[in-house]
């Protein structure tokens, strides 16, 4: 086109990013990539090959092995033999390697951006301005954590070999989010990139070589789902970190249940984008562009559900349409486009199917009248208006450039709609009224809240979700805990379960026969099934009876806990006062409880007194913590505050062990209550009477109804019901190894956070029985981004 013609039309022309230097590299690997094992390029045992193509053109880019079990075994072996010396390195030594990787990413930033765009189809603007800078930032940040590890985590140690499985939507960024913290903490890694987008991971392996990373510290294995499964199942892998679909997350939860593997899952989302009438609407439109039309909407935290105040809905949707009519879709390497290609034809088909389904349900589809390239996997930005929460399209993740629009009337309704989802990854709230914005931010159930902004990320700020969006955080100090374990947590030679004994008819209790009920909603409640269990003392003597709790008792207890929301919102000071009060009341019953402990457990009087003293001590500890387990303000690169708060999990199930039956019970309930959880507690199966005696302490201590509910019965039977209950947000289990597995398996459907003892015992009398680990398990981190400026 001539200058004169352009002068007249003022059109945009092509603005391609140079890619020849990347094509040369791909050409060098035309015969196929190999696996990166033990610091070397290794031929795969598997003869299967995966080919990868450019989604914008369909042209082949390269091929690599579909690694099999033997390949995975070799990689894990390499990781295992590298672990000891890698973990032994000083933090500073590891920091130097991570720093080198950060520098290498920066020095190769253009190469990585172009390669990522070729492989994934996302615009070069994004890989260049978002993905790659965040990758470098993540390695820098974690070089820092490596440096500070001994100071900041003196009681923790690395896990071993970590298996990491990452998705195709941010291939290199997810690699960085996985590898950087794992290495900083002293672990070695076996990482499987997604089969659609493995190229930047393979190039990263070259950078590991260039950085002189010791062999076996990072191993990169290409392959499909089956390869991932071999990693997940491998016995020598200590932890699985996964980012991807909720469906695959469930499978991984299932395969790892009972294996003792640590697990972090960053899964799907259906994140709300809430626009109030007092928002800067033009800016909110741009926010939406960044929320749902970033990376073609193939983003787990995409703001895919627009919730807009009814009074401005029509005008706001018009503004979105005006904006979308200016959209440019095309060659992802072009520097003047808004959206590139969908990663794979199958994903395109999936998006189309979901949109058609939404239309069939009653939504109105709108797409801008803009040109799409003739070749390649492209899908236009799409708005579905008139979407009701009852439509599937409002509930299920589309993972494409599709926005659903739903209106609300009030702030309260906005929050209700925002939380009306199984997911809880992110949210974006738009209002220029700080009261409204922060009030809403505090009530949205999501791991990330962006106020008047969206899709901002930083290594210093935790990322991760609530509910079925997974558990664990990536980035910040929270993220490091996912790759560490306490040096001393369990007593491997002790059993938390005290074996049942034969009833001993000859010895009878000298007390009046007593049958304890459950304690639900602040009242003693008869067991639903009308059945009881005999409680025997350590010698088999009859000590009384307790309710034999069943599913319905758990249901009632959870219902009561769910309703007791005020416990979660009351001030930390109030919660502390009540914990102190419980301690005070327990103290005045020391004699009664110690007598009970002696008779039930056979403990000496001195030991019993010590257990009670320690119980009171522990109540004081968590009363102290109630207003001190603070969040943090993070050093995010924005003008504004990015802060994280510790929110209670919500309804927390606790299944208690038998050892130190009073102290273990107190040690578990106190941190849970201190952090604002409403609890459903199954006390020691063997010695439940300590807990049922405790009712009177509770009743005199102003514990609000429903904050603490007790159901006695058979441990694993009730644990399973709690694990399966969708309204229970987290579950702590102290019982057998088998019971731990039951809990992990039963949590698959709702992916609740579980904390199990794997059959091991804690020394409740020592420091093992308390601490911040309990508080972290009692809370979830919500990170709130709050840019400011007027």
């Amino acid at each position, binding site marked *: *086109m*001539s*200058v*004169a*013609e*352009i*002068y007249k*039309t*003022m*059109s*945009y*022309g*092509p*603005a391609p990013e140079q890619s020849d230097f990347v094509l040369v590299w791909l050409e060098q690997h035309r015969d196929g990539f190999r696996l990166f094992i033990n610091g070397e390029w290794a031929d795969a045992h598997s003869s299967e090959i995966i080919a990868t193509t450019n989604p914008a053109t369909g042209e082949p880019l390269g091929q690599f092995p579909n690694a099999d079990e033997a390949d995975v075994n070799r990689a894990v072996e390499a990781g295992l033999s590298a672990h000891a010396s890698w973990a032994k390195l000083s933090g500073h030594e590891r920091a130097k390697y991570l720093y080198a990787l950060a520098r290498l990413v920066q020095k190769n930033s253009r190469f990585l951006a172009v390669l990522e765009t070729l492989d994934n189809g996302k615009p070069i*603007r994004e890989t*260049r*301005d978002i993905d790659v800078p965040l990758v470098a930032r993540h390695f820098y940040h974690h070089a820092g954590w490596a440096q500070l590890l001994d100071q900041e985590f003196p009681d923790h140690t690395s896990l071993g070999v970590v298996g990491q499985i990452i998705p195709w939507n941010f291939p290199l960024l997810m690699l960085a989010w996985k590898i950087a913290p794992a290495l900083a903490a002293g672990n070695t890694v076996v990482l499987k990139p997604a089969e659609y987008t493995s190229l930047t991971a393979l190039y990263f392996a070259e950078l590991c070589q260039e950085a002189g990373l010791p062999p076996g510290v990072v191993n990169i294995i290409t392959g499909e789902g089956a390869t991932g499964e071999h990693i997940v199942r491998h016995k020598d892998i200590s932890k699985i970190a996964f980012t991807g679909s909720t469906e695959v997350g469930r499978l991984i939860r299932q395969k790892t249940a009972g294996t003792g593997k640590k697990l972090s899952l960053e899964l799907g989302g259906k994140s709300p984008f809430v626009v109030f*009438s*007092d*928002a*800067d*609407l*033009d*800016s*909110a439109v*741009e*926010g939406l562009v*960044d929320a749902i039309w970033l990376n073609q909407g193939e983003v787990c935290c995409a703001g895919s559900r627009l919730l807009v105040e009814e*009074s*401005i809905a*029509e*005008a706001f949707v*018009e*503004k979105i349409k*005006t904006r979308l*009519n*200016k959209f440019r879709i095309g060659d992802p390497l072009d*520097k*003047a*486009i*808004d959206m590139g290609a969908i990663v794979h034809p199958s994903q395109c088909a999936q998006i189309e199917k979901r949109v058609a389904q939404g239309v069939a349900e009653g939504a109105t589809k709108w797409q801008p009248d803009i040109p799409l390239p003739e070749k390649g996997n492209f899908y236009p930005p799409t708005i579905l208006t008139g979407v009701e929460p009852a439509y599937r399209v409002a509930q299920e993740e589309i993972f494409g450039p599709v926005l659903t629009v739903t209106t609300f009337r009030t702030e309260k309704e906005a929050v209700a709609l925002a939380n009306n989802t199984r997911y809880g990854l992110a949210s974006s709230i738009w209002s*220029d009224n700080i009261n409204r914005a922060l009030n809403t931010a505090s009530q949205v159930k999501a791991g990330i809240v962006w106020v*008047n*902004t969206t899709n901002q990320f930083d290594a210093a700020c935790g990322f991760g979700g609530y509910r079925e969006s997974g558990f664990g955080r990536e980035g910040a100090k929270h993220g490091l805990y996912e790759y560490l374990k306490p040096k001393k947590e369990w007593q491997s030679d002790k059993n938390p379960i005290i074996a049942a004994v034969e009833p001993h008819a000859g010895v009878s209790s000298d007390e009046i026969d007593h049958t304890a009920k459950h304690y639900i909603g602040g009242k003693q409640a008869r067991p639903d099934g009308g059945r009881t269990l005999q409680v025997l003392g350590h010698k088999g003597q009859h000590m009384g009876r307790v309710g034999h709790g069943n599913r319905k008792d758990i249901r009632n207890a959870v219902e009561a806990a769910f309703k007791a929301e005020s416990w979660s919102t009351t001030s930390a000071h109030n919660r502390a006062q009540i914990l102190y009060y419980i301690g005070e009341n327990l103290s005045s019953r020391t004699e009664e409880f110690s007598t009970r402990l002696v008779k039930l457990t056979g403990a000496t009087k001195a030991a019993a007194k010590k257990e009670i003293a320690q119980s009171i001590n522990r109540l004081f500890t968590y009363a102290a913590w109630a207003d001190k387990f603070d969040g943090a303000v993070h050093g995010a690169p*924005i*003008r*504004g505050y990015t802060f994280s708060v510790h929110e209670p999990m919500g309804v927390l199930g606790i299944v208690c062990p038998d050892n130190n039956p009073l102290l273990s019970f107190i040690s578990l309930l106190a941190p849970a209550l201190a952090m604002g959880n409403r609890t459903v507690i199954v006390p020691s199966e063997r010695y439940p009477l300590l807990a049922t005696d405790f009712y009177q302490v509770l009743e005199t201590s102003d514990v609000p109804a429903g904050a603490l509910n007790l159901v006695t019965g058979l441990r694993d039977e009730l644990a399973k019901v709690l694990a399966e209950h969708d309204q229970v947000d987290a579950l702590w289990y102290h019982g057998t190894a088998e019971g731990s597995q039951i809990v992990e398996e039963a949590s698959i459907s709702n992916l609740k956070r579980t904390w199990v003892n794997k059959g091991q015992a804690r020394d409740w009398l020592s420091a093992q029985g308390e601490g911040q680990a309990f508080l972290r398990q009692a809370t979830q981190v919500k990170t709130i981004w709050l*840019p*400011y*400026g*007027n």
Partner: protein
Amino acid sequence: MSRETTRDNIIALDPHSDDTPKRNMGAPITFDNLDAIRINRSATERRIATLAGRRSVKKEWQAAWLLKAISCIDLTTLAGDDTPGRVERLCAKARHPVRSDILEALGMNQAGITTGAVCVYHEMVPIAVEALKGSGIPVAAVSTGFPAGLSPFITRLEEIKASVEAGANEIDIVISRRHVLLEDWSALHDEIADFREACGEAHLKTILATGELGSLTSVAKASMVCMHAGADFIKTSTGMEGVNATLPVSLVMTRCIRDYYQRTGQQVGFKPAGGIGDAKTALAYLILIKEELGDDWLSPHLFRFGASRLLNDIERQLEHFVTGHYSATHRHPMG
């Protein structure tokens, strides 16, 4: 911007009309509605930060866009030591902003490329009018006690009339910043309406001096009041404030223009001024205008740069496009 906008009275952007736009006649305004205006600075800045990565013009496109930028320059001299000779030199440059061999190489020597206007103080108006006779290039006069705007109201009105009398086609007035800072919107509205009346046939460009208004929200409110009072252009700055034209301020003002257009059907022009010194920044402004307002506004009728240094940098970029060599300042005639 404002929650008032409803579908019934929205007018589509990009009408692609070839006609010279009609003058803005103003529109009735309810000052209470200004309270609904919200501008979020961080989000506004983020749009600007990402826009630079979303659009890019290269090669022929860049050359054509830079020529367009030239056609939108109000070539300006506003110095105490301006003389007839200085102004005549500037006017000659306005007529011939680019060396003819470069234009020839671009195939644009017949396109009649001139700057958008020449902008001077009142005393220099007759000189400029004379020097530009027959060129079709309008003369703009800064007025109303420029740059502070604190001379007696009556003399400010007289100043406008005198400049119009002297042949100025456009009057760049400064608003009374205190009306914005004190939120006395009716005073601002009346002032602009009076200025407009004093302009007669001359076009009224209202300088908001955005760097002195305290917040982006105030910029938006002042923009709305000026347009409703009949401003033909809204302009960011005098060039004399601590902070002059910026892209975020320009984004806010262009969105106001869009809003006003969608409600009234009247197109108001936009002029960023001060601190726009290089071709790259000029392109960023043109992209902003194209994205937020549409192609209609990519014309000197509706868009101007207030600049003095910008032209030389554009000339060097154009020569670079033609020759493939980086160019030098001295190769381009002074203005």
